[in-house]
């Protein structure tokens, strides 16, 4: 396989079929894709297009049934064993019996960091997601947006260069979501991580990404990959510029070509 050292995720003819009682479900078919270091890649499409499944394959939470995929040049399982990525789920999935700082320290405890280093990293990542001063609170004492920020901090606490985010802001209202999108871009800029981001919001995908992967359902597949010409520095106002609207239009066309709007 011809693969540059810059490639973080590389999939070739990747397929995943779930066997169900109603017959096989083709969650992914023939996915060819590579994600380069420092990219912010969004996966967009209607439900059932396999975007979350693809992310879970990268994370070794699902096993592909055909094709190949490498993460940092390794198999997903090897990459997971080396703790190559941080995963942010749709829900914050904080443990309710742990304070926010102890939740962020959870992966650090498991990975065997010293107490001293745990504390430093918790403080640093809390600061990174603007939650300084909330470390001693329990999850239920925080709003949904703050909980999701804490879960991002948890994924950032250890040194994974790859961040996998599965509709992390899907359950939040639009005002909070705008704010978190802006913060996420700043964080990406500062940390230089590679981010794979699943969403079903066109503006969110266009605003955040350097590349947008448009996907379609039945069978789940990639229909278009769009390179964004937008600059790295993106104020919220960029969403009203003609360039932005043009990319959004192309994403919409891609979704339409994949019959995503039928039914």
């Amino acid at each position, binding site marked *: 396989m011809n693969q540059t050292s810059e490639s973080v995720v590389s999939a070739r003819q990747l397929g995943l079929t779930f066997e169900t009682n109603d017959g096989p479900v083709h969650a992914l078919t023939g996915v060819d894709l590579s994600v380069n270091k420092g990219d912010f890649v969004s996966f967009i499409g209607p439900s059932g297009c396999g975007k979350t499944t693809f992310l879970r394959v990268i994370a070794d939470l699902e096993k592909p049934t055909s094709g190949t995929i490498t993460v940092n040049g390794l198999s997903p399982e090897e990459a997971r064993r080396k703790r190559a990525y941080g995963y942010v789920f749709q829900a914050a999935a904080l443990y309710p*019996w742990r304070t926010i700082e102890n939740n962020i320290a959870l992966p650090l405890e498991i990975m065997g960091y010293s107490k001293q280093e745990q504390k430093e990293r918790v403080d640093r990542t809390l600061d990174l997601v603007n939650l300084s001063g909330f470390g001693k609170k329990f999850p239920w004492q925080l709003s949904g947006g703050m909980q999701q920020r804490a879960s991002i901090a948890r994924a950032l606490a250890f040194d994974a260069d790859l961040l996998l985010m599965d509709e992390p802001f899907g359950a939040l209202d639009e005002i909070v979501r705008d704010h978190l999108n802006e913060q996420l871009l700043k964080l990406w800029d500062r940390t230089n991580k590679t981010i794979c981001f699943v969403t079903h919001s066109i503006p969110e995908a266009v605003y955040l990404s350097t590349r947008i992967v448009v996907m379609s359902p039945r069978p789940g597949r990639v229909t278009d990959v769009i390179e964004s010409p937008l600059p790295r520095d993106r104020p919220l106002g960029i969403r009203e510029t003609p360039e932005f609207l043009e990319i959004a239009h192309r994403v919409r066309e891609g979704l339409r070509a994949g019959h995503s709007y039928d039914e």
Partner: protein
Amino acid sequence: MMEKPSVFQERVLPVLTILFALLVIWYVAVVFLNAPFERDTAGRAGTTITFSEILPKTMFQQRPVLPAPHQVIAEIWDTTVNKAVTSKRSLVYHAWITLSATLLGFIMGGVLGILLAVGIVHNRAMDRSFMPWVIASQTIPILAIAPMIIVVLNAIGISGLLPKALISTYLSFFPVVVGMVKGLRSPEQIQLDLMHTYHASKAQTFWKLRWPASMPYLFASLKVAVAISLVGAIVGELPTGAVAGLGARLLAGSYYGQTVQIWSALFMAAALAATLVMVVGLAHTAVLKRMGIKP
């Protein structure tokens, strides 16, 4: 704006109302159940007796069919406060005998239940093979198996506290197994996936996720377990001619028609059960509070 009801109105009044109703029913029953004895006595003496003469007599019989509440209270007072706790006539002494077997059985049952649940959750073969037997064990009437346990253990030289505690164990491990299997499986898939992404070991997943998640289930089943532990200990004292313990008091009372003694032992057992459940409840609250669960 509505006035906030006082603690008395909210909590105490309903309880007192029921208590009062129960006492009224009890006293009425005392009169009707104990009256025939007075009529027979009068009949044998060749005299007739009016209802107003019967009424006070039914309240103070030596061996009433149903003792009056004040007789039971007087007996409990006499056998707790007026007797040294080491005396065989002291209800406190008998309660302690039963309580010690209850607590030992409860601890063994709790530990056994937790260990079985951990095995069942982590091992597919154990899940398949053990769970049906755990359920089957509870379909056997305890009254049938208790004497056999006592007799068999006695034959190999084990008697006293342990056989009774084992009967308590036999009863109390069951709710703990069922509750803990459910509790250890209560973490959501997303919380388990998170552990998977960290490449956490089984032990780490257990101590950092499954165990803390199971705490509410553990305490709910411990409340049931401690109450039936007491039942187990009392049942263990019944068929063996035990000389001490609340079960022995019940048995001796029924041999000699000492209904007042039976009822006071019953009330002592009820009070003991209520206290034990309350202690587990307090431990539950304390643990959840320490864990920071939303109040």
